[in-house]
């Protein structure tokens, strides 16, 4: 096949591209320029958007022996990912921009462009597996549980999964580094990236405050009584305990946690730990990575964070919303996060959490 290798400048995408070449594909390396004003150097574990990263990607492509180009996706990334990140926070929700980037950029804008140019698909360094089944291709967890990235890929529909190749899903990260070393790739020991790539400082709250303003507002308890003041509601996260700066202690001295963020009244609601408990969740905009599910309750697992636990649940589709009823309550779940449903290691689909109870 003729495929585009999305190369971030990191070790995973470099090895993925090399493996695709070895598998006999005709591979062309592409680095996505996602920032219109990139930083020169990479700092710490952040991002893949610096000039240094693009040089690393180019060098890897040259060593592998494939053509290499840079595609400017800065406008698409800003509109589809960064603006969404801000508007979600402004609406009191907690988005995951990496899912959004996979959904809107890597497996949409890039895949569409690649197909129009006569390519068959996109290969990336994500840790996930696909399987060919009687019902079509399905998406599965990687063998390395610490690196498994099926959660952030659960926004891909079947057509997108058909156009995707994930050559790293069957290998552990430590072996990928060894393989990179053996292939003479200089990025073999480059640190993993963890944080949000477009927040170079790593300070999400500060980044949001700068862009959305830091209008102060009340922190109230569940009875609506003001017990403190916040510095910008969206800089708080559901379940957050530290840094609330509350002046009125609870009667029994027990800690308080952020329960709710109300953007319209610019209010942060806090309460006791047990009030964080969530027994069920509903998600909107469901996407199915394999066969679509129906209204019949089904046993499975739901995961709500990139490296969170798989929680036993019963799931079903209620009209256009995905519902998961948890076996055991979960503490602290924000709307805006993605709920991803698993059937064993197979990804069933995902939705954006809009309601918890």
């Amino acid at each position, binding site marked *: 096949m003729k495929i585009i290798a999305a190369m971030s400048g990191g070790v995973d995408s470099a090895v993925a591209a090399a493996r695709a070449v070895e598998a006999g594909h005709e591979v*062309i390396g592409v*680095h996505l*320029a996602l920032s219109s004003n*990139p930083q020169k150097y990479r700092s710490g574990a952040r991002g893949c958007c610096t*000039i240094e990263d*693009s040089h690393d990607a*180019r060098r890897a492509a040259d060593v592998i022996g494939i*053509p290499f*180009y*840079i*595609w*400017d996706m*800065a*406008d*698409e990334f800003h509109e589809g990912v960064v603006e969404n990140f801000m508007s979600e926070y402004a609406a009191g929700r907690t988005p995951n921009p990496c899912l959004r980037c996979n959904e809107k950029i890597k497996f949409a*804008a*890039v895949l*569409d*462009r690649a*197909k*129009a*140019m*006569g390519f068959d698909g996109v290969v990336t360094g994500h840790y996930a597996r696909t399987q060919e089944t009687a019902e079509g291709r399905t998406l599965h967890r990687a063998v390395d549980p610490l690196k498994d990235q099926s959660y952030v890929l659960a926004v891909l529909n079947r057509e997108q999964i058909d156009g995707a190749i994930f050559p790293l899903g069957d290998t552990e990260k430590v072996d990928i580094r060894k393989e990179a070393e053996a292939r003479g790739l200089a990025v073999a020991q480059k640190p993993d990236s963890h944080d949000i790539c477009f927040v170079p400082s790593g300070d999400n709250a500060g980044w949001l405050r700068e862009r959305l303003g830091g209008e102060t507002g009340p922190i109230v308890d569940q009875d609506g009584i003001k017990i403190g003041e916040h510095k910008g509601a969206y800089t708080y996260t559901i379940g957050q305990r530290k840094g609330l700066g509350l002046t009125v202690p609870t009667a029994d001295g027990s800690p308080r946690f952020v329960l709710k963020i109300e953007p319209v009244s610019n209010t942060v609601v806090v309460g006791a730990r047990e009030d964080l408990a969530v027994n069920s969740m509903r998600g909107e905009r469901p996407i199915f990575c394999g066969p679509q599910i129906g209204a019949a309750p089904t046993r499975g697992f739901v995961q709500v964070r990139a490296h969170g636990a798989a929680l036993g649940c019963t799931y079903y589709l209620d009209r256009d919303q995905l519902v998961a009823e948890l076996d055991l309550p979960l503490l602290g779940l924000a709307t805006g996060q993605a709920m991803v449903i698993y059937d064993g290691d197979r990804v069933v689909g995902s939705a954006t959490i809009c309601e918890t109870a």
Partner: protein
Amino acid sequence: MSVYLDHAATTPMFDVAIDAMAQSLRKVGNPSSLHTEGRSTRKDVEDAREKIAQAIGCLASEIIFTGSGTEADNAAIKGLFWHRKKKVILVSSIEHQAVIDPARWLAEHEGAELIEIPVTSSGVINLDFFKQIVAERGPEIALISVMHSNNETGVIQPIAEVVAIAGDIPVHSDAIQSFSKVPLSFKELGLFAMSISGHKVGGPLGIGALILRRGVEIPALLHGGGQERDIRSGTINAPSIVAFAAAVEAHIYDAAKVTSLREAFEEGVRQVRPDAIFNGQSVQRLPGISNITFPGTQSDSLLLLMDSEKVSCSTGAACSAGVHRPSHVLLAMGLSQITAQSSLRFSFGATSMQADVDYVLSVLPRVIERGLAANSVGKK
């Protein structure tokens, strides 16, 4: 088959130049040394200097060898600005970055006032504007820099008129694309300074020259041993200079042949894509450069597709991150951002053949079709 149509970026070294360079590399002797070996290498360098001087219509002593064309441009712009102690720098809006960037740097750091001369839609500088600025600001102008021909469109600029209008104001011309391609005489043009480069004319990379009128002593960019007229220091790069001169002397570039190849190519493109726009086509151009807008495409997609068909051509410009940007030259000619980003440069050279033209024309239809498709989905 693979087809190289990026000769304006760099062109293959001529065999005579490679041979001359290899021979010189085997010789020992710093041209500045006083002993036998030094004198022998010095003779090679001075023979080369005379050959180049003859080809370019200047005195041998007016040639200052540099490490690149960019260095020659920088030395001219900064050197003349500091030498003249006047405020205004007047450059065309289509100069290469090697001229525009030092001029902007002087404006940001050294108090210069930069005035850019606009160009017409055909890519020729606006002489009326130029005349008016010279009339209004003449006594304040430190230097004028207008390239002999543009590297993206190949459009030749009216340098003789510029010099005539400038009067006593020093005029520098970046002649890097023109040298050895079209008739060019430093003396006849009446220039004050001019830049040329080795690797654009069949010589090696890493050698350029500033032609600077005799008797003018501009401040140096590189201080040290003062080897080149006290304006450029650094051990004289004898092998590259010798090879540069060998390429210039051999003059294998056949302008008539290159012109006819380019014309055949453009005619073929016109037939395949009647909507193609040839930038700068109505005016005098270099033999080998063809700058074409393919409406509805993105040039970075076209370049990828051309490359995968084994055709090497070029898009206008890229930023430091490698991201394709609309060409400042095409924007200055009045093209929109979108149109400027739908343009490719094909440049023919001494080694180009009719078979190259035929091959490119055979792959062009599917490249443009796919480029149109990619643009309609991948970009807004």
